[in-house]
């Protein structure tokens, strides 16, 4: 089923690309496309179960989303240029919302970016402390999870402590030790 859906999505994308190519007046770029399956899932998430979406409505929503991203992005890049910066940051987008009439987006997006940065900062601590070879290892951003091998290693290093104390306070110390030990081995 998933495969079929994906194939259907790809076919839709191809059809739209062809349509966009044939229509020279189209404002959006040829390679600027969003997957229709994800878009429909996002739409149905906010609507009640009995609601249905027509094909034309899906296409129109997709084009509006692409236009919106380009419109807001142009405004944000102009703000960054005005401040003589070559890097566009979320603050530029937040500033452009007021100019473009999207005041309702400022509060939720501000909360989102703060939460995201806090999350990144926590993850960043784990990544920055170990040496570069450790950073190269693929760690899941979901949270501090340890494999069985790591747990056995930690237990072998600190066998004297109890399980409660071990789980309560030693993970950080263990983490650091793990990093250092790994470095020494390398």
């Amino acid at each position, binding site marked *: 089923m998933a495969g079929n859906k994906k194939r259907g999505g790809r076919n839709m994308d191809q059809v739209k690309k062809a349509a966009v190519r044939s229509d020279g007046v189209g404002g959006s770029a040829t390679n600027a496309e969003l997957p229709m399956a994800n878009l429909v899932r996002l739409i149905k998430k906010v609507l009640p179960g009995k609601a*249905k979406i027509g094909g034309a409505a899906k296409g129109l929503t997709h084009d509006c989303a692409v236009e919106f991203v380009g419109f807001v992005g142009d405004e944000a890049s102009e703000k960054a240029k005005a401040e003589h910066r070559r890097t566009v940051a979320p603050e530029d987008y937040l500033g452009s919302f007021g100019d473009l009439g999207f005041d309702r987006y400022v509060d939720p997006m501000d909360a989102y970016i703060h939460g995201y940065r806090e999350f990144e900062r926590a993850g960043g601590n784990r990544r920055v402390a170990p040496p570069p070879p450790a950073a190269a290892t693929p760690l899941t951003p979901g949270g501090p999870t340890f494999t069985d091998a790591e747990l056995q290693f930690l237990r072998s290093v600190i066998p004297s402590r109890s399980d409660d104390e071990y789980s309560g306070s030693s993970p950080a110390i263990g983490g650091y030790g793990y990093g250092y030990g790994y470095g020494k081995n390398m």
Partner: protein
Amino acid sequence: MAIPTKEEVEQNEEDNTFSRLQLLAQQRHAMEEFWRRSQEQIEASAGNHEHILPIDCVKNVIRPKNDAMMLSADTPTFVTKLCELFVQELTLRAWVCANSHNRDIILGTDIAEAITTTESYHFLGNVLRSHKALGSTAPDIDTSARKHIKLDQMTSLYHPTQEMQASRLAGYPPHVPIYPPIGQMGTQHKLSPFTFMMQGESLLNMKREKSLVNEVMVCTNKMSINNFDGATSIGGGSSSDVAIVVQQGETTHPFSSQNACPSLEDNYVVPMPTGHVQSFSPPTNINVKKLHQEEKNIYSQDVAEEDMSNESLEGSQKDEDLFLHEK
């Protein structure tokens, strides 16, 4: 989500004639709830949010627009979340429009209506036009309907202005004193025909005076004819008397005219004694005086009044002669 939909359905059933203001109110209500839930979800997730849209695709959408600019590490994630919120907001607005038409299927017309209704979505007009170019005629109908609505609003706006003008005219105080001048104008118009009537009356009086003058002339003519008859009868007597009679006739003619003025009684009595008096009195003196009197009459009427007074004196003298003759 089920609860507001039920409420919306009930509202639709209650309001048979769904107005644009109610649609906007429902949209506002739905948006308030949407933003509140979004805020709660974002705060609850604490940054550990799963994105439905792939970040790589969003990067591709952003990058062609900003060739010369670079993106910070957290911008693609930020824009992905932004795009998700936009799609959900647009879809929810379109869902409210579909409900206003009592439909459970969202069509392109509903999305076009949502775009037309929201001010911040004006930049999406290009997208609608491109879709029209591709061949979808539904947005055309929707936009035409919106234009009609705007035209109706404009016409409704014009009517109150006309009513205001009418009320202003009705309540304008200076209009009230304007009427009395009109009345005065009427009176002035009435005066002018009165003057015309006065002029007419004056003309009638003049005509009457002329008619009186004519009557006087007629009387004088009759008297002169009678005098001629008398003279001819007297002339038949003798040759020497004929010459005298002729002179007497000439003299009697103006005399009769003079006598005609005073009164008819004098006229009846005067011819016989005048004939006798003229036969006895010296004709030369009388002729000279009468000629002078005639000349005066010819020159002016004012002199005629003096002649009348002279005639009255002459009449009195003649009466004295009669008394002397009788004695």
